[in-house]
Structure formats: C-alpha cells, structure tokens
C-alpha cells in the first residue's frame, strides 16, 4: 500500500536537494528544476513542489502556475509505461483516432481516465512528433513505433504486460 510514497521519502528529499543545489536554488531556473524533479518521480508531487517553492523563494502558486502551463509537466502520477499517441495532422489522417479508441478500450480506460489502476500504463495524445513519414506513430517511453495498426498497438501492450508479469 502506497509503496510509491514510502520509496519516495527514503530517497526523496535528498534527491530534491541535489537537484536544487545543482541549479544553485535560483528561481530563474524553475523550469529545469521542475524537469529534473519530474525525471526523478515521473510526476510533480504536491509536497515536493511546495518544498521546491520554499527553497527558491517563490510562492507555491507561481510554481503551480508554471507546472500547469506546460503540457510536459504532470501533477498526476503516471504509469510505468507512458504511451504517447501522435494526433498531429498526418497521424490523424492516417487513423490515429481509431488506434486511440482501441488502446483505451483494450486497457479498460474509462471517461477521462488516462492511467491504468495498476499504474502500468498511461495513455496520452501529443500533437506531432515530427515523424510524419511514419504515421501513425506511437511512442512508448522512449521507443518509437511507426505505421501502427490497432492490432499492432495491442500486441505491443500485451508484450509489455507479459514481460512485467514474468519479472514478478
């Protein structure tokens, strides 16, 4: 239960301090600091944001404003695998919407839910990854998959789930 938090406090504040020191606790470096924090935790936890804000002498509301302005930042925990489906013009024309529907129903995501309850997958759309020649494109973590079909996408997800299951 809540092992994410447990794991976090063991390492957390030390890590955040390292990050803050790396940027000399300079409020002008807020964005790189947030990037580094998100790299560390896969999202921006509220308590860490308050800690960052107090440390660099900015109001928490300002830090929250920056964190919510850029779509790169997320305040919700993301799954271990982030599935980014491109919905730019080229991918859209090549049927990205169909793939999205398929992925979401396969993972059982309802309404505006984006992360599976087991925290394995997060599904989101992005606007153009600049790989239009490969449309439609799906990026899972840092791996790019081109000319994806609904079936192909499902296989990719099943493959990950199988490997994860084998590891446990």
């Amino acid at each position, binding site marked *: *239960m*809540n092992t994410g*938090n*447990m794991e976090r*406090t*063991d390492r957390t*504040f*030390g890590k955040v301090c390292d990050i803050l020191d790396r940027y000399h606790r300079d409020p002008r470096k807020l964005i790189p600091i947030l990037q580094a924090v998100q790299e560390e935790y896969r999202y921006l936890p*509220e*308590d860490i*944001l*308050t*800690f960052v*804000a*107090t*440390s660099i002498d*900015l*109001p*928490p*509301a*300002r*830090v*929250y*404003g920056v964190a*919510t*302005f850029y779509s790169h930042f997320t*305040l919700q925990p993301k799954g271990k695998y982030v599935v980014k489906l491109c919905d730019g013009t080229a991918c859209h024309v090549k049927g990205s919407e169909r793939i999205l529907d398929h992925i979401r129903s396969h993972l059982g995501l309802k309404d505006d839910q984006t992360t599976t309850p087991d925290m394995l997958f997060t599904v989101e759309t992005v606007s153009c990854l600049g790989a239009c020649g490969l449309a439609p494109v799906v990026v899972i973590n840092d791996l790019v998959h081109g000319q994806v079909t609904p079936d192909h996408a499902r296989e990719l997800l099943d493959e990950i789930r199988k490997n994860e299951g084998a590891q446990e």
Partner: protein
Amino acid sequence: MNEQKLTVNGRRVAFHDEKNILEVIRKANIDLPTFCYHSELSVYGACRLCIVEIEGRGVQAACSVSPEAGLTIRTHTPELRETRKLTIELLLANHHQGCTTCRKSPSCKLLDLANRLGVNTVRFKQAGRELPLDTSNPALVRDPNKCILCGDCVRVCSEIQGIGAIDFAHRGAEATVAPAYGKKLGEVECVYCGQCAAVCPTGAILPASETDAVWAKLGDPTVTVVAQIAPAVRVAVGEAFGFGAGESAGSKIVAALKAIGFKNVYDTSFAADLTILEETGEFLRRTEMNGKLPLMTSCCPAWVTYAERFYPELLPHLSTCKSPQQMFGSLVKPMLSEKLKTSREQVVVVSIMPCTAKKFEGRRPEFAVNGSPDVDHVLTTQELIEMIRDAGLRFNELAAEAFDLPFGFKTGAGIIFGNSGGVSEAVVRYAHEKITGQKLESFDVHAVRGEDGWREANVDLGSRTLKILVVHGLGNARRAAELIRDGQAPWDFVEVMACPGGCVGGAGQPVTAGGDTRRKRRDGLYREDKVLQLHESQDNPYIRQCYHDFLGEIGGEKAHELLHTRYESRKRITGDGIDLKPATDPEVNVKVCLGTSCFVRGSQKLLQELLKNLSLENLDDSVAVQASFCHERCDRGPTVTVNEEILDKCTLERLMERIRSHSRAVAREKV
C-alpha cells in the same frame, strides 16, 4: 522640467514624465478604457482596450508605449471602436452574466464598459464550464466564472503585498487565476487584506458579505445591536451618494444606522485612543526595560496574520495590544451587558470597517469568551452602503446625529489612525507629553506623514530621539522584517499597514480608481482631526473615566487581560500528510515534519531511523507514520507529533521513548 508635446486627436498635448502615452491621453481628459492597467502595478498589456492608432506605427496598446515628442495619436477611429467592442463581446461570451444578481454590478468595470462602448448584443455562444464558487475564505469570495484574466489581483498580491497567494494556472481555454494546487483561498497563505478584490474589475473576487446576518440580528427583538465605526469609513461612504471623496459623513452615518435599527452608534476612534495609551505605555516600558525593539504595531489584522505566517520569529516584536476593533469589543461588550443587565449573548457588536481582514480578526477564537465573540459581525464600508440602499434611506437628506456617549467620544489622535502614519503620530503626541511633561507645540507631526510606502522619520522627544519607520504595503513590511531579523534595523518603532495609504485605501472601501481618491480621504481625516477640540488620546475624558472605573492602570492587570493578546505561528498551506507507513492496527500515530526548516535540522534522517527502529522493536503493526509538511514551528525543529503530543527538537531516543509510552498506555486501556 523639460516639456514636450505630442498630438492626440488633432490637439497638442504636453507631457513631462508620464511613463506611457495612456497617462498622457488620460491627462488630456480622455478616459481611455482599461482592465489591466493600474498606475501602481507593472504594465501587463493584456486587455487590449487602451489600443490607439499611432501614425506610422499602426494600432498599439497605449499602456505599453512611452511618450515621444511628435507622436500623432488617434483614440477612437471606427477601427479602434470596432476592435474594443469586439474585445468586450468576447469577454462577455466567457463571462457568467448574472449581472442582475451580482453584488459588483454597481461598480463593475465590465458592465460599465459594455454600456459605455455600446455593446448591445453578444453574437457568440456562451462558452465555458461552470466552476464552483470558493467561499472558504472568511474575508473574500472567489467566483472564477466572472474572471476576465486581467491579472490585476495576481500582480497586486505579488508586487504590492509580496505574497503571491494566487497566480495564473493552466493555459488557453482552461486558464484560471487560482491558489496553489487548485486549493481554496481559505487553505493557502492569503492574509485577507483583500487588495485583490479592490483591484478586480468584475465580481470575480468580492469581500464576503455579512449583511444578511446583521439584518437578522436587527430584526430580533431579544437582542441589542450596537455599531462601531472605524475612522476611514466616514470619509468614503459619501462617495456612493454623490459626496466628494474625503468629505466627512460621520454624523450622517450615525443617523443612517439609527434609522436602520442600531440601538447605539459608537466610534472605533474611541478605542483607538485607548490603543494609543496602551501601546505607547508598552513601548516606553520596553525602552526602559531593554525589551524587544523595534516595537511593531499590531492594529492592522492583515499585517498580524502576515507576520504569523511568514515571520513567526518576529512575533515578540509585535505590540501585544489588540487592535482598536477588538479593544472596543472586549471593553464594550461586558460594560454594556452589565449596564443593560442582560447576558453577553444579548448584546450584538457590529463593526463597520474599511477592511476585509477585520472579518477574519473578528473570528479569531482568542477574541471570544466561552465561544461568544467580542465582535459579532464585521461589515465593510461597501456593505454599509448596500444596507443604506437596501433600507431605501435618502442618505443626503438625513439630518446629522451625534455619536453616542461614552464610546462615541474621541480625540483627533484616534481619527488619524485611518491614515498611514496616523498611529505613529498619535503615539508621538502621547509619548512627548509622557517623556517631557509638556504638550507638543503643534500637534501636527509632519515628519511621519506622507504618501511613500517606506518613510523613515526622527522625532525629537526632549531627552531622546525616536526613530520611526512607517510602511504600507506588505512588500515593504517584508523588507523591514528581514532587516529586523538580520539585526540591521535602526528603528525604535515600526508602523505597518497592509493597504496602500493605510485604512483609507482598505479593500472594504468603495472601489476607487486609485491614488487620487485615497489622497482626498486622507486629507479628510486630517481635517477631521483639526476640527475636533482634543488631539491627544491622553486628554480623552471618557478614556480616563474608563481607566478609573473599570480598567485600573494603563498596562495594569485588568487592562492586560482585556486589551492585550498573543500571537501564534500559522501554517501557510494546509493539507493532509502523506502516509509513509500505514499500520494494520494503528495505536500510535506519528507525524514527522519534513518542512524546509525541520529538514535542515535532520528530520529526514530521523524518519529513516524511526522506520528502521519500528521494525526492530516489532512495532510495525501498531505505529502508523505520516510525513507532514511543516508544522510551522520552524524555530524548534525537527518537530514530531505522537498522537496529539508535540515533540520539539526531537531526537530518536526521545521519540522512541514517547512511542513506547503511548503504546503502553493504549495497552493498559485495553486491559
């Protein structure tokens, strides 16, 4: 100064040091509309209503162009008029248009401009979703559906008050102005000064209203309702009824309140006189006995809350005197209930204040006796105006009436409290006589008057010189606080008011265009001081009588009990702790603070060792551990709570000992 000229609508207009052409155009008596421009804030250039056509440069926002000689400017060409109307129309499409039921309507800039610019129809479909009303804050109500994103509130909170409790969040169609993490305004570091509401052009942030509750009390035959009126209210109420700003309407307010149904109408300036005697007494005692100096004033509730939230280590510098509003309540309530031979609960004290933070102050639990508050309701000047209108009173026609005695009698020193510098001046008027044994030659102490947000003055008090700092705006208070904290403050006495110009510029006052109205209100208070017979608090005969009959000595035991208070460190952001180690059968709950200061003092290491030790001692099942974010006892970290017990400067040995003791106690209870 070098005078240059530019052309506005074919007429030559001179300019000197105006910072933009908007100011020059307004000087030429053309009221170019704006939402996001305030002369005291940074230029934002977002609302695009002050657009003008500049020959050779096209359409520009006047707020963002510096004046240059020879510019040829037009302010209302067909294209400009069309663009402005379209801007308003688009704002209206995004705006919750409940104007008939909106309290802001009489002074709403959006409504006014829509009318002025002839926006008769909105061609766009009403957009957007309905966001919930935020009523969590005791002083302010936030309605995000009425926000036009001009950012005035964001800038006043960060630039003038140095707090930044609200800011822009999200982007595009989702953009809002909100406190951190989408929390409510009552859950963050807001100090209730209300300057956000004072600059808001629409009804997106409004002072919370208590008029219904007061009307209900007035209709209850079993209670006696009395009012106290703060000094700054009397020079602003008239603005809503066609009086010039600064014109004193004190006696008409008394008549109006009597007509509305208040039994007695008293003057907070009476309590201000009392404050001066107590505060000066405290100051002189601290000077003689090497107490904490500089003494910082405590009559501004937004400043007191600010100090509690941001500078808890400076709280010993704050005067322990209650504010005049609270002194009034704690003195008058018992005296009146004794006189009327009724219970406390049957005397209802309503304050009428220029201030939104007073609403919070009135609700502080320490200002109540067995849950019965010293001040029951706090109305702003705006709410008083609403009540006068609601009752249908022809304010201008009312025959003047006098304040009731004894608590309606004041000296000029109690009146000038409403101006920045007023408290210092009143202190000097008393301290001078107290130290030298002689009255001031002239009671006007010009050294502490003025408009700047940071004013230092040396005042000669016979054998010694009193070094005074007067600040308004919490950004300036912060600057002073840091110097005091670092031991670099040369002053003996520091007066702090949160609002620009002091209480005359309070957020409960009628919405103004800015500095000019404030100056007129200020001058109005100084005029009122001039025409009163007495100017020094120590000369108020009713105050003397109060000490003689009821309070005893200045600063004495009874005075201390009734008129002084204490302060506490307050959390900035509230929220639940994070579960670190849930227990299957929790008997002991441990919360370790991981706030900045405790972290520096090793709370993280303590936490790690704690978790290790719990498994070693087989306490895993019965002890739950949470990380909390800042108990705000930063001077005593690391702070840990075990069940309800707070352990300051906590060590592992002590913590384990307390945990064992608590679990033994639980075990005993079970047996």
